[in-house]
């Protein structure tokens, strides 16, 4: 079947309200900014999203044409250098809204949604560079939600020469773009199988971070992945689960996320999950209270032991050897299934 043609760069830019300006946008006076960016504005004199996108695009245009050297600055610095002052001049600087987060969202939109640029085009510096490493076993990736696990990740990377990445609390498209670039520089075939070992909180937010990481890898070309969740209730005894558990917040805004998470949890059949649910009566209704586990609730020693069991057999294997290994595992699983059916 004929593949649907991607809209042209021009039309994607037009749709996003981005176009070329001869003038340096961030240097222009208020009147000029209002004249050029008032279309679609509601709360402020200018359309903030459109203004941000155009400044980003103009910066990229100038760098790509060689009119300006690559930025080599953090996104946060870009915000102060080009965006904040322009918004202030246009009378559009918010007091309560986090407009830096809005800038990040707009850049993610330009990179992932309309695909008109890459972070490296502008040369943004990766604030997380120190927390990632590509090893000789590049397709084996141990990652954590929090920077607190960095020392553990480094120890494992030193021992087994695998790739590691500490996400720093939230998934960043920029981090993953640069991480995948490092893999490409190391001549790693992105089409091969990648095994991901995750250290994220056992709760809806932790799994959202994990899924975003996997999706971002997919966006940059790594789609054959298998994830091992190292933080799960079966890594602890029932007594330990009871001691480590904490109540998962359940405001209205989180209800759907919590339900989706629980559905995913049930698919995994963790034996000790039953210690993380409690039914209580509230307002004459039976309600389910959910509990989670922090990534830190499982000791490094225990995580290392688990990695030895599930990760080490995968090390140093070519794609063909991995396939043979997995077929042997499948053979064993089928034999177990036969015994189970017969007994």
């Amino acid at each position, binding site marked *: 079947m004929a593949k649907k043609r991607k809209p042209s760069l021009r039309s994607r830019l037009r749709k996003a309200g981005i176009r070329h300006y001869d003038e340096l946008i961030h240097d222009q006076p208020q009147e000029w900014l209002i004249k050029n960016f008032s279309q679609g504005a509601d709360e402020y004199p200018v359309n903030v999203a459109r203004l941000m996108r155009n400044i980003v695009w103009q910066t990229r245009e100038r760098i790509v044409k060689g009119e300006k050297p690559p930025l080599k600055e953090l996104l946060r610095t870009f915000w102060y250098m080009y965006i904040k002052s322009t918004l202030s001049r246009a009378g559009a600087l918010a007091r309560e809204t986090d407009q830096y987060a809005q800038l990040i969202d707009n850049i993610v939109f330009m990179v992932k949604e309309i695909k008109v640029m890459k972070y490296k085009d502008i040369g943004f510096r990766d604030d997380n560079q120190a927390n990632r490493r590509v090893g000789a076993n590049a397709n084996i990736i141990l990652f954590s939600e929090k920077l607190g696990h960095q020392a553990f990740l480094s120890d494992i990377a030193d021992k087994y020469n695998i790739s590691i990445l500490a996400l720093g609390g939230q998934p960043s498209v920029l981090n993953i773009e640069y991480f995948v670039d490092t893999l490409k520089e190391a001549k790693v075939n992105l089409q091969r199988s990648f095994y991901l070992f995750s250290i994220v909180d056992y709760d809806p937010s932790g799994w959202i971070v994990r899924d975003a990481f996997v999706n971002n890898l997919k966006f940059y070309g790594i789609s054959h992945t298998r994830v091992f969740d190292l933080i799960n209730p079966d890594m602890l005894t029932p007594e330990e689960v009871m001691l480590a558990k904490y109540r998962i917040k359940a405001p209205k805004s989180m209800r759907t996320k919590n339900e989706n998470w629980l559905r995913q949890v049930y698919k995994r*059949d963790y034996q000790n999950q039953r210690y993380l649910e409690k039914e209580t009566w509230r307002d004459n209704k039976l309600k389910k209270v959910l509990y989670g586990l922090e990534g830190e609730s499982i000791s490094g020693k225990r995580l290392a032991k688990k990695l030895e069991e599930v990760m080490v057999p995968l090390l140093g294997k070519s794609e063909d050897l991995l396939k043979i290994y*997995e077929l042997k595992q*499948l053979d064993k699983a089928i034999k177990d*299934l036969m015994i*189970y059916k017969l007994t």
Partner: protein
Amino acid sequence: MPKKKTASKAAPQPAKFLRFNAIKEYINDNLKMRSSDKAVKKFIKEFDSAIGATLKEAKKSSREDKRNTIMDQDIIPALEKHLGKKYLTWQETVKEIIRQNPTDLGKISKAVNDYIEKGQGK
């Protein structure tokens, strides 16, 4: 000598059987849900393709039988092949397993092990 007309090289457009608005309205009115345009388009694309493939298969079958009419005996196996297939032969199962990449093979093993564990936990 007049030049021979050359056939257009453009690939034939796949036939459109399902209407976007019909699906949207059904989801709205009957399922009482909203739907993203992207999801509906994907749904339509897959079904249009399956309908096209099924009809082609049925046509082939009736032609082999030297008929100009598509009948039950043509459409039933075509439906089975393109839409209603639930069970694979063992050869097809093996083929399907062998073509998986290592990570997906691992997921199959895990699913088998989970099935056993679930049964043992009963």
